[in-house]
């Protein structure tokens, strides 16, 4: 069922879901949404399964035309969404008339918006996922960012979709300063005591050389103890690797599955999802916690996710 036509692709718009799982041992990156929290919420607001494919909209310029009556929800970063020129509310279910034009015209809080459509965006499943992996040229629409003229389809949907919204207390305020909790290691022993202290006590700035593969940071140089090259091993979402120049790189969803730089720490999953909203120029600090604390945080997060949406009518 045709649902949306792209009038302008904007800076960088792709189709993403929870990512391609199970093939990392063959060198296949997972791809998937940078901000998984917002993707899940966009789907739940329109009564989709949490892992349906959504639009991931980065920065400005996307314009879309509704080809039929649609029920949508926009979550994540505030890119000043509008419908026919008037403000379009975020974090709630919205009904759109056929021929409505949706636009994203600015950058407010955060940098990535998620647009979920009741019925879910339908593109072919490639190895179990609809996520676009640009470097591999697969997933989404022909493995590339969306552009003018693309027409997107949706699957079957409920005939009546209740209007929902995210409870106010759960609506995130991203800001420009990030406190990211990390678990030290697995290669912290490649760094001197001084290096680890630099890492945990300094403020870093996110540079423009940051994308879905990784965020490069600028700030105090972290001292190695044993040299900066390791025999390659696997990377994780949130791995913080420090090459010879001593500046950390946080790895995200399009990262290579293996890498040859020591990883001083790994950001915890919940905080990595939020970091999908960080912009170049934002400042970030790292604070180490234990695995047990991290698991408590994750459990509380899932509990909060369960109860955060209310039906308006």
């Amino acid at each position: 069922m045709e649902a949306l036509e792209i009038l302008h692709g904007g800076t960088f718009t792709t189709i993403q879901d929870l990512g391609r799982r199970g093939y990392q041992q063959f060198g296949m990156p997972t791809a998937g949404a940078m901000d998984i929290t917002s993707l899940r919420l966009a789907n739940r607001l329109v009564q989709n399964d949490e892992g349906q494919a959504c639009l991931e909209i980065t920065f400005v310029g996307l314009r879309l035309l509704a080809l039929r009556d649609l029920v949508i929800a926009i979550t994540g970063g505030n890119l000043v969404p509008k419908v026919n020129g008037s403000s379009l509310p975020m974090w709630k279910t919205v009904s759109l008339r056929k021929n409505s034009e949706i636009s994203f015209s600015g950058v407010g809080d955060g940098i990535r918006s998620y647009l979920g459509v009741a019925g879910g965006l339908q593109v072919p499943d490639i190895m179990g996922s609809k996520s676009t992996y640009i470097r591999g040229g697969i997933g989404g629409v022909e493995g590339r960012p969306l552009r003018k003229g693309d027409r997107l389809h949706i699957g079957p949907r409920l005939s009546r979709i209740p209007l929902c919204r995210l409870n106010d207390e759960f609506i995130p305020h991203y800001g420009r300063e990030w406190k990211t909790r990390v678990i030290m290691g697995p290669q912290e022993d490649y760094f001197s005591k001084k290096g680890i202290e630099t890492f945990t006590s300094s403020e870093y700035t996110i540079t423009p050389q940051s994308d879905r593969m990784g965020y490069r940071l600028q700030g105090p140089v972290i001292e190695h103890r044993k040299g900066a090259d390791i025999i390659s091993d696997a990377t994780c979402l949130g791995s913080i690797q420090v090459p010879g120049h001593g500046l950390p790189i946080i790895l995200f969803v399009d990262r290579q599955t293996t890498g040859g730089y020591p990883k001083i720490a790994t950001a915890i999953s919940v905080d990595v999802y939020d970091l999908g909203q960080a912009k170049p120029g934002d400042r970030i600090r790292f604070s180490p916690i234990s695995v047990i604390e991290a698991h408590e945080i994750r459990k509380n997060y899932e509990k909060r996710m369960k109860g955060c949406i209310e039906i308006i009518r």
Partner: protein
Amino acid sequence: MYRQARYLPAGDEGLLIEFGNEIHPDIHHRVYAMARAVEEATIQGIDEIIPSYRSLLVAYDPLVINFKDLTDQLKGIEKNLAHGAIPEHRRVEIPTLYGGEFGPDLDFVANHQGLTPEEVIRIHSSQDYLVYMLGFTPGFPYLGGNLEIIATPRLKTPRIKVPAGSVGIAENQTGIYPIESPGGWRIIGRTPLKLFNPLQPPHFLLAAGDMVRFIPIDEKQYVDLLNYGSP
């Protein structure tokens, strides 16, 4: 190889089992044997595993299993691995058209070591290579073998586009590019086989632990294989 494997947290969803800190067949065998045993054990909460030169990353769901229980179960599996046992390797032949348009650096590699192109082909195609791991791009194999006599440094400026199937040499390593990508390895030939097929399974030709051998072919065989697939 470490006397005792190290169990290290890699974030809140990952556990890294490190067996050593060098590229060595013995370490690989340990990683590979452990990977197989973990797959067979089907522990609740394990999402996927990623073997590498020296370690095995176990990705898990912290809502299903905690770090300590997972560590205990994995240590149990590790204890029961037969020591020194070498798991059986799958053997995969890679038909390769050497030189010419498809192997633009073959002559350079030969000159670099004072050999003829034919000698380079013979040396490259007369030994088995172990697939230590896959990475870099989907399906890219890191191969281990003995290539000292044809070792050649990387290109100073990497090519922007290396075609899929290209067989390259970098120092004393050899590898195959599964998809068109940038690359700085010296390209000596090309295989008509698909190492990565996203559209239908099996998606990947190779897996960690395979033994690979390059088989020299001529242009006609290349075209036949490209058109009709593996015989």
